[in-house]
């Protein structure tokens, strides 16, 4: 082998010149697009379709909530592909989508079962990413599961749009660049509830917490206790209960003679249904303590939980991300689409999942690519309206949406089986906004 470099011949010079000229002559927009469209997982550039993954609890305690999420996702896909009445696409502002899929590609989807277990959710999501080639996945009804999936999203470089997750940790200490949450959180519940509790129950109260013993329960307990202590309430006790305890009577009985006049149930799903039902059976709502009516608070409500707890929810305060009875343009459009499709109104879980799907799709359209790094940038600090919660900001610093929060109470005069929650107050976004640094956490890099 010769180590002497030969001088460039005439043909080589011509080739190099032609290549260089071609590169320089290419319009900037094409080269940017070409660059953006490469080097990311599951690039759908050469396909006529783009696939989303919907990973929801199809089995286990949250299967009904998962079924409602799936209904919403199907509706969102239908609307993205220009079928049906368009739902919130007719109210969403600003809107880059035009009802012909995303960037001209028809949207398809695959589904998975999280079983409300972190490992099962990760396995299902991994299958969707590796086998089905999804560009984004979404869903879920548990903070533990959402946090586990966000980590996977960051590892795999595929965007995860959270479903129902209310723990501060999701966009706090466990926030990830590839994870986005539209749903509100425990801090916001506390901030929204505070003024209403002060007005309805005063500043001289003694609160007793029963808390589900996992990430969401802990953060909710902390946030609500901070709020109530800020009002001047005393926290009598904070008792952790095992997840899925079933019979909570042994935890409720000590409340009776604890001197507390408020019971705060930091429970969700089946735990909330059981603990609230049993607390009411123990006569807590009819009790007079410290000269005041005993009150029960359920900081996070959902319609499905309200259905499970039956008439025990009457008059009990809590917060919710959205309720189908809202009369804004976006909510009415969504309720109409969903109701006509399925015969009943959507739950808050369905709403957040539907909105997340449209927001992701719109971000792709605005970014002009499915490259997650660009889509993430399009979602960060994006401001939108017409999606049922008033003007909303997808904050770039922690990927948390900031919007109005609903304070609700169990409807005492329900007119139908779905009319379970009465909106007491719409707390403006400005009152529930906080410094992203208070919960710590690092988003991580755009490129993985």
């Amino acid at each position, binding site marked *: 082998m010769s180590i002497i470099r030969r001088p460039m011949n005439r043909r080589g010079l011509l080739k190099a010149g032609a290549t260089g000229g071609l590169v320089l002559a290419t319009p900037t927009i094409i080269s940017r697009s070409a660059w953006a469209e490469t080097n990311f997982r599951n690039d759908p550039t050469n396909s006529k379709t783009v696939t989303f993954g919907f990973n929801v609890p199809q089995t286990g305690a949250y299967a009904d909530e998962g079924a409602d999420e799936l209904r919403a996702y199907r509706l969102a896909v239908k609307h993205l592909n220009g079928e049906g009445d368009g739902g919130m696409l007719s109210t969403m502002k600003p809107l880059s989508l035009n009802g012909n899929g995303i960037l001209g590609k028809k949207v398809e989807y695959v589904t998975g079962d999280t079983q409300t277990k972190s490992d099962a959710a990760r396995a299902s999501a991994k299958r969707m990413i590796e086998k089905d080639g999804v560009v984004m996945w979404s869903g879920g009804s548990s903070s533990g599961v959402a946090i586990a999936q966000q980590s996977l999203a960051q590892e795999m470089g595929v965007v995860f749009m959270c479903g129902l997750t209310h723990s501060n940790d999701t966009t706090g200490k466990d926030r990830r660049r590839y994870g986005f949450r539209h749903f509100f959180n425990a801090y916001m519940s506390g901030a929204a509830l505070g003024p209403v509790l002060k007005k309805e129950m005063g500043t001289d109260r003694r609160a007793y917490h029963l808390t589900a013993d996992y990430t969401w329960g802990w953060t909710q307990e902390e946030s609500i206790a901070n709020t109530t202590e800020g009002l001047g309430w005393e926290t009598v006790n904070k008792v952790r209960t095992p997840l899925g305890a079933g019979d909570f009577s042994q935890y409720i*009985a000590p409340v009776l003679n604890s001197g507390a006049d408020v019971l705060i149930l930091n429970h969700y799903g*089946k735990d909330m249904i059981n603990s609230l039902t049993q607390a009411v*059976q123990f*006569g807590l709502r009819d009790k007079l303590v410290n000269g005041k009516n005993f009150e029960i608070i359920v900081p996070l409500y959902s319609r499905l939980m309200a259905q499970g707890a*039956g008439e*025990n929810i009457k008059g009990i305060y809590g917060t919710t991300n959205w309720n189908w009875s809202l009369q804004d343009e976006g909510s009415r459009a969504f309720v109409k689409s*969903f*109701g006509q499709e399925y015969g009943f*109104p959507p739950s808050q879980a369905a709403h957040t999942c539907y909105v997340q799907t449209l927001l992701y799709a719109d971000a792709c359209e605005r970014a002009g690519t499915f490259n997650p790094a660009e889509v993430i940038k399009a979602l960060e600090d994006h401001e939108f309206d017409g999606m049922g919660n008033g003007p909303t900001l997808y904050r770039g610093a922690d990927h948390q949406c900031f919007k109005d929060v609903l304070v609700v109470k169990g409807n005492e005069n329900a007119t139908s089986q779905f009319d379970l929650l009465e909106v007491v107050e719409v707390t403006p976004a400005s009152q529930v906004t906080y410094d992203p640094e208070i919960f710590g956490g690092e988003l991580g890099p755009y490129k993985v």
Partner: protein
Amino acid sequence: MDAIVLQILNGLDKGGAYALIALGLTLIFGTLGVVNFAHGALFMLGAFCAVAFNHLIGLEQVVVDPTKTTAWGTPLETRVPYIEAWLGDTGTAMLNYSVPLSILLAIPVMLLVGYVMERGLIRHFYKRPHAEQILVTFGLAIVLQEIIKSYFGANPIPQAAPDMVRGAMDLGVLMGFDPGTVVYPQWRIVYLFFSLSVIGAVFAFLQFTTFGMVVRAGMADRETVGFLGINIERRFTLVFAMAAVVAGLAGVMYTPILPPDYHMGMDFLVLSFVVVVVGGMGSLPGAVSAGFLLGILQSFASMNEVKTILPGIDQIIIYLVAVIILLVRPRGLMGRKGVMET
């Protein structure tokens, strides 16, 4: 003191449910020698008999009001239960008492379920190892759960106790405490008396009837009873069905306490097995007394005073007691010699 009384009541109540399930488990194990992991599912099926009965008598007449529309634009439907439209106040009262009335549905349904289960599946596993019995009955439990879930959904379905016993009762006044210190849900008191009655009825049936005498003889020495020309198999089939009814009734009456869902049986199953082991395999009085004992211990372990000293004790107390009992009395509290020892 009032807190202790409350936890004793709680424990007795919880123990009542454990005892009823464990009683059925022990009956089946003592007679057929089968470890029935589908027993929790029978409890759940009983609970869903209450739900089904409520749905049945609550069937509604749908009247469409074309002048009004829902939020999604379809005509508004007004619903009135047929039974109220037809029977007036009697219909309303039947709806109010739907949980206790559903016992009338649960008894034949659970008898049939028990009979079909034993004849159709369990009997093929009498002579198979316990591990295989556990696998097949556990599999059956999952199938039953999924059937219920596919029809009724996964969300708990609340069942209300009758108005008369829906509230709480001030037991403190009766016991000499200050008013309002020992307040206890009325339906839980009803449940406690109900479970004691069912347990009493099962014992009386086994103790004072010829059928019961033969079954007890069969439990003690199956072969000798066979030599006497008695078809013990047939009687044991009925015992299985009876155990299914006991579990089912426990489930029916538990629905106002715990809104039933498809998974509720599994939550009770593991605890009931521990109850059976602590009480002594095959011992009916052992199962009942262990049920109440563990129920009370579980309640006491959840007291804040106890949890402050031993955090997390409420979640392990039952298993801790089981370990201690098995170390001190390997056959359980009232276990018979020779059961599961060959």
